[in-house]
């Protein structure tokens, strides 16, 4: 597999990477800096290190100690108790409540990613391929929900989805007299999640679609592909890197959602995030909350890695030998 590297020039085989210091003189400090660091096998590490270190100190460490605390327990009156115990995990798996909520979390997160994907493609195509004003309109519009506070936003949805809301009204105009009740169901949660997390899908997709060579699409058209087929066979696979980013963002974010399920799901369909908030803020059961968090982390990480791996492997296939 040939690797190509932007910031360094000798590349490819490890023998070369290891070939030692660069021959020649350096005329400027800047160049010396870049060259020096581009010719060692540690360049990648060097680039990744600051961010990684930052997250290791300010995220991993605190969160790992949180995970460690999931192995401690708290006494009935909310007081923390020292020592290692698996009781939080036993509790997690002894009742089917948590398992069912885990499954709901996975379901909502997957559905959100799926719906976001369906809605995101036309939007991303409009951004990537439309004129500047269309692109601007779409971009601003889909970003807007992110800037509106979740409670206010949810209130907007409530107004639309309630029995006498805009949604019911529209359905009535179309002749559906007994509109399905959406508010305070999983559907409302799904709708609201898709609504806010849509831009996280659209933007990476638009970037990926914008990079697709138009003549490749044209070639497919000429070969007899309908627009739909062009999409399925050309645009979709070539946008996979963007989709992978979008899907992993949306899946992760919706898995951890906790305000929306409370407000729009009417607390009837909480996700794991809601339970975590409940444990930590209401019940003071920090260890059990940590245990649920650990479960959530493991779940999302697994799904993400499996998914990313699948996409990356496929993607690697057509870039690995690219020059």
């Amino acid at each position, binding site marked *: 597999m040939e690797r190509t590297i932007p910031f360094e020039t000798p590349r490819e085989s490890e023998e070369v990477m290891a070939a030692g210091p660069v021959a020649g003189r350096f005329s400027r400090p800047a160049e010396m800096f870049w060259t020096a660091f581009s010719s060692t096998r540690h360049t990648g590490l060097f680039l990744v290190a600051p961010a990684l270190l930052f997250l290791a100190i300010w995220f991993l460490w605190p969160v790992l100690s949180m995970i460690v605390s999931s192995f401690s327990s708290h006494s009935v009156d909310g007081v923390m108790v020292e020592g290692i115990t698996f009781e939080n995990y036993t509790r997690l798996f002894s009742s089917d409540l948590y398992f069912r909520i885990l499954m709901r979390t996975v379901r909502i997160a997957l559905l959100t990613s799926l719906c976001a994907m369906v809605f995101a493609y036309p939007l991303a195509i409009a951004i990537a391929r439309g004129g500047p004003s269309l692109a601007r309109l779409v971009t601003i519009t889909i970003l807007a929900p992110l800037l509106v506070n979740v409670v206010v936003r949810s209130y907007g949805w409530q107004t639309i989805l309630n029995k006498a809301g805009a949604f019911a009204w529209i359905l009535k105009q179309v002749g559906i007299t007994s509109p399905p009740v959406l508010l305070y169901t999983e559907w409302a949660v799904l709708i609201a999640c898709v609504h806010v997390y849509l831009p996280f899908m659209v933007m990476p997709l638009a970037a990926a679609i914008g990079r697709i060579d138009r003549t*490749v699409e*044209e070639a497919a058209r000429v070969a007899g592909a309908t627009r739909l087929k062009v999409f399925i066979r050309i645009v979709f696979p*070539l946008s996979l890197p963007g989709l992978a980013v979008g899907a992993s963002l949306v899946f992760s974010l919706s898995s951890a959602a906790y305000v929306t399920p409370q407000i729009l799901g009417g607390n009837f369909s909480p996700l794991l995030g809601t339970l975590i908030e409940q444990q930590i803020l209401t019940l003071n059961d920090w260890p059990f909350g940590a245990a649920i968090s650990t479960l959530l982390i493991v779940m999302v990480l697994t799904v993400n890695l499996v998914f990313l791996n699948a996409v990356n492997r496929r993607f690697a296939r057509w870039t690995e030998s690219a020059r």
Partner: protein
Amino acid sequence: MGNPAVTTNRGGGSVSLSGISRRYGASQVVSDVNLEARSGEILALLGPSGCGKTTTLRMIAGLVQPTSGEISIDGKPVTTLPVHRRNLGMLFQNYALFPHMTVLENVAFGLSMRGTPKAEMAHRVKQALALTHLTGFEDRMPAALSGGQQQRVALARAIVYQPKVLLLDEPFGALDKKLREAMQIELRQLCNKLGLTTILVTHDQEEALVLADQIAVMRGGRIEQVASAREVYERPASHFVADFIGTSNFIPSAVLESRNGMTTLAGLSGNVFTSSMTTNLGAGEKAIVAVRPESIRLTPGEPSGGETNTISGNVLRTVFKGQSLSVWLDVPGLEFVCALPIEAIGATPPEPGTRWTANWSAERTLIVREQ
């Protein structure tokens, strides 16, 4: 799930362009092009870089909308027919291979769009790959192919489903001569067998001459001449065509007389030329005598005198070109270039500084209008 309107067929469709124009912003890239490719024939679009060849092909394919004019395939206007319903095969100048598909998948694409059964698909793809000398490359990704290999994949992809009309934009540009010639023969045979109508953009005059039934020479977005290969070669309609079709020597002249199918002209420095080309130019009118380098014989020394179609000068330089030796004679007002077949070189090849006389037959004397 085939698209019933798009099926493979064994007879090519005629293509006709009438009054086609295309503008990009302020620049008129194609102007009032009228062209007719008859069913089953190969039409070559020839012309200098940037003259609008690719744009014309793209308009036929439906990838670019003409700003005005009408395109029909098989007599039916296609201006509103979507690209994928036109049943065309097209080889793009930059290949436009699908980067995420293997060679096999690239080639099979058009067939799968037509719902071709698996077995037949495999068979046809195999054939197309064999034809393009790509057997063994089935599972490569395009990025791992050389330039010429990519071009051949693009060709295989365009022909595999035997479209009604084949649009080829410099199909052999990245191939060496041997391979190019082999593929030209294959293409010719394929077109004959299937009666494919082919429109071929090329910058290789020889390719156009060998492959094409008709040649359309374009210049600055306009058609300068459309005619059979031989006619374009032997009776170029203009200075430009003559010039473009093969490096020629152009001698500004004036018509002396024209009768019995023979025209006599006087060159500016007194040389007299006779041509078997008839012309509707009257006596005294200006014309240009054009002589192709390979039409010329060279003899050492000065002309014997009184002969027509001779011109002499000192050798400026010579260049060995494999099949021939190019010799530049220093003739007042121009550099006269002759291409001597290797075999025609006698014991004393022309050396720079020596004096030689060029002569040629009346049959090889072209008369073109001044521009």
